[in-house]
C-alpha cells in the first residue's frame, strides 16, 4: 500500500469536509474532579482532576477518535458527554441543545439518541437476562412499538450485527467475547441513536476478532448514519476507524486534527512520542523512537503550566524554557482561521513562542506508520 491515503470514502470525505457541516456535539470547558475523601470526618482531602477543561466538537456523521494512555481521562469524557456522570463544570451541547444540566423526563428522550458500547464484553451484559431481553431493553424503556414489533426489531438488529435469531433466548455466558460485543452493539443501536460512544470497544478482544468488530462498526455507521466518539489507546485501531483524532494527556486535549494529519504530520510533542511507539512490521525500516522519561504524573497534583512539560522531549532539546512550566498552552489553530488542526504547545503553530527553533521537525518525527490492524478498504 502506498503512503497515499486511499481508504476514505470520497462522498463521505466530501460530506465531512463540508464547511457548514453542523456539529452534533459541542463540548466546552468540560471539567470533572473526583474528590478523594479521608480522615475520620470523611472530608475531601484532595481532588483527582480527571478532566480539566476539555473542548471539542463532533461533526454529524464522523468518527472522532479520542486517544490517550490509561488515566488520561478519555473514558470520563465519554461518560460526561452521555450524562452518566455529572460534570464539575462546563457544557455539553447535543444537536444544538444544552444537555449539561437537564434531568429526569427531559433527559430520557436525549438518552435514546446517545448510546454507549463498552470495553469489557463480559461485564456489559446482565448475566441473568437472555440476550434478546438485553437487546430489546431500550425498546421496552422507551415503549417503542408493540410487543411483536419489538421482537421483530430485535430480530432485525441481531441480523444486522451478525447474530442468529435463535440466539435471542440464550444467556450471555453462552457467547464468545466477540459475539458479546456484537450483542452490546445491538443493544445500543436498537433505539436508533444518532451518537454512539465506543469506549475501547475492541481492547478486550482477540486481534482477529478486533478487525471483525471494527469493520462491523464501520459498515453500521454507513448504513445507519451514525456519529461515533471512538475512545481507544491503540493507535492502529484509531487510524483504521477515525475521521479525526483528538489526543488527550492528563485530562487535557493536546492536539486535534484529521486522521491523515495526525498520523503523517503530528505537531504536539506528546502525539509525536505516541506515534513513534507504534511498531512497524518491517525489520529493515529504522525510525526514530521517542522514549519519554518518567511516568505519567498524578492527576491529583498535575504539573504547572503545560502538563506535559516534565516529560517533554522538545522542551528538553530547547534547554527547558520557563514558559512551559509557568503558562498553560491553549489549544489553538496551527494555522489561524483554518481550524482543522489544533495543538496545545507553546512551540508549535501560530502561538509559537520561539518559532521553528524546535529541533524535532514535525516531518522527521514520525513516518506514516500503519499500526496493528490491517486497514480494510473502506470503499
Amino acid at each position, binding site marked *: 500500500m502506498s503512503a497515499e491515503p486511499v481508504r476514505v470514502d470520497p462522498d463521505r470525505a466530501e460530506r465531512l469536509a463540508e464547511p457548514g457541516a453542523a456539529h452534533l456535539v459541542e463540548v466546552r470547558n468540560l471539567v470533572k474532579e473526583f474528590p478523594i475523601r479521608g480522615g475520620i470526618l470523611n472530608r475531601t482531602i484532595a481532588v483527582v482532576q480527571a478532566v480539566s477543561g476539555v473542548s471539542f466538537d463532533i461533526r454529524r456523521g464522523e468518527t472522532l477518535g479520542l486517544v490517550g494512555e490509561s488515566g488520561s481521562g478519555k473514558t470520563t469524557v465519554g461518560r460526561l458527554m452521555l450524562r452518566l456522570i455529572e460534570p464539575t463544570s462546563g457544557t455539553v451541547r447535543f444537536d444544538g441543545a444544552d444537555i449539561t444540566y437537564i434531568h429526569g423526563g427531559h433527559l*430520557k428522550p436525549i438518552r435514546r439518541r446517545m448510546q454507549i458500547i463498552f470495553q469489557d464484553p463480559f461485564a456489559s451484559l446482565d448475566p441473568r437476562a437472555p440476550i434478546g431481553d438485553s437487546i430489546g431493553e*431500550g425498546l421496552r424503556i422507551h415503549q417503542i412499538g408493540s410487543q411483536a414489533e419489538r421482537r421483530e426489531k430485535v430480530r432485525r438488529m441481531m441480523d444486522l450485527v451478525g447474530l442468529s435469531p435463535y440466539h435471542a433466548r440464550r444467556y450471555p455466558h453462552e457467547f464468545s467475547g466477540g459475539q458479546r460485543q456484537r450483542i452490546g452493539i445491538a443493544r445500543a443501536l436498537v433505539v436508533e441513536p444518532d451518537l454512539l460512544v465506543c469506549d475501547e470497544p475492541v481492547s478486550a478482544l482477540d486481534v482477529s476478532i478486533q478487525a471483525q468488530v471494527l469493520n462491523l462498526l464501520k459498515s453500521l455507521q454507513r448504513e445507519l448514519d451514525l456519529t461515533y466518539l471512538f475512545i481507544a489507546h491503540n493507535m492502529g485501531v484509531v487510524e483504521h476507524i477515525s475521521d479525526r483524532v483528538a489526543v488527550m494527556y492528563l485530562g487535557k486535549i493536546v492536539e486535534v486534527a484529521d486522521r491523515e494529519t495526525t498520523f503523517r504530520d503530528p505537531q504536539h510533542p506528546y502525539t509525536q512520542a505516541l506515534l513513534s511507539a507504534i511498531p512497524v512490521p518491517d525489520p529493515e525500516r529504522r525510525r526514530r523512537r521517542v522514549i519519554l522519561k518518567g511516568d505519567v504524573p498524578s492527576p491529583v497534583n498535575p504539573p504547572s503550566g503545560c502538563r506535559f512539560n516534565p516529560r517533554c522531549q522538545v522542551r528538553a532539546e530547547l534547554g527547558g524554557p520557563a514558559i512551559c512550566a509557568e503558562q498553560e498552552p491553549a489549544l489553538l489553530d496551527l494555522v489561524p482561521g483554518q481550524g482543522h488542526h489544533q495543538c496545545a504547545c507553546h512551540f508549535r503553530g501560530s502561538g509559537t513562542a520561539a518559532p521553528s527553533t524546535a529541533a524535532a521537525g514535525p516531518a522527521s518525527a514520525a513516518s506514516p506508520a500503519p499500526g496493528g490492524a490491517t486497514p480494510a478498504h473502506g470503499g
Partner: protein
Amino acid sequence: MTLSQPSLDAAVDALTASPASSLRRDTIRNILRQRTAVVGLTIMLLLVLVAVFADVIAPFEPNVSMLDLGLPGTRGLPPCIHLLGCPADQTQHLMGLDSNLRDAFSRVIHGARVSLIIGLATVTVAIVIGTLIGAVAGYSGGRTDNVLMRLMDVVLSFPSLILAITIVTVLGTGLLNAMLAIAIVSIPVYARVMRASVLSVRESDFVTASRALGESSVGILSRRILPNALTPLIVQGTLGIGGAILEVAALSFVGVGAQPPTAEWGFMIASDRNLFFSAPHLIFFPGVAITLSVLAFNLIGDGLRDALDPRLNR
C-alpha cells in the same frame, strides 16, 4: 444411594430436561449432584408432607386429652408400640403421652406445620424489609446509606435472642409477636447481604448501559440489581428458615412464644421439662424434630450456595 454415577447423571438429566431456562436447569442439576443437599431436600420434603397431611398422619387431635376421649392414660406414659410388644388392649402412643395426657406423636406431627409456617413467614417478612433497606442504602449511598446501616448496626449490637425477648415483652407474649420479634432481629443480615450485592452490581457496565438507555432508578433496582442479588439472598434465606425455627422454639421454651395449647416443639419441651428424668422421651422427640428441620434447611442452604457459586461451575 446405590446408583452408579452414570445412571445417576442420566436420572438427573431426565429430571431436568424440561425446557426451563438453561440457568435454572444448571442450578437444579448442580444441587442434585450434591449429596448433602439432596439429604437436606429429602428431609425438607418429608417435613412438608408431614405438615400438609398432619391430620391424616396423626392418630389423635393434637390438643385433645385422653381423659376427654374416655381412654385410660398415665401422665408421662412411655411409648406404647403394638409391634414392639405393647399389649393390644392398650391404646397405641408412638411417642407416649405428655403431662396433659395428650398423644405426643400427634403433637410432634402437628408441630411440623407450625414450625414450617413460622420459618417461612418470619424469613419472608425479614427478607422483604431487609432487602428494601439494603437496596435503598446501597443504591443511594452517602448519608442515607450511613443512617440506615448504622441503624442496622444498632440492632446487631444486641444479642439477637435477648433483643427478641425484649421486643416480645414490649409487644406482649404470643407466637405471632415472637415471630415478628425474630423477623426484626434478623433484618440486618438481609439488609447487609442486599447492600453488598447492590454495591458490587451498581457500578457494572450493564447497569451503566441501562442508565444510558434511560432506565429509571426503580427500574434498574428491580430489573437489573435485584435479580443479580437474589442468589446470596436465597442462600441466606434458606439458612435463615432453620435459624428462625430454632429461635422461635427458643422463645417458646422461655415462655414468651407459643402459648398453650399450641403444639409447638419449643413449647412442648418447655412444658414437660419437669418430667425430664421420668419421661425423657417427651423432650427427646420434639428436640429431634427441631434438630432435623434446622439441619435440613442448613444443608439445603449450603448446597444452594455451592450450586449457585459460579466459581464452582464445572
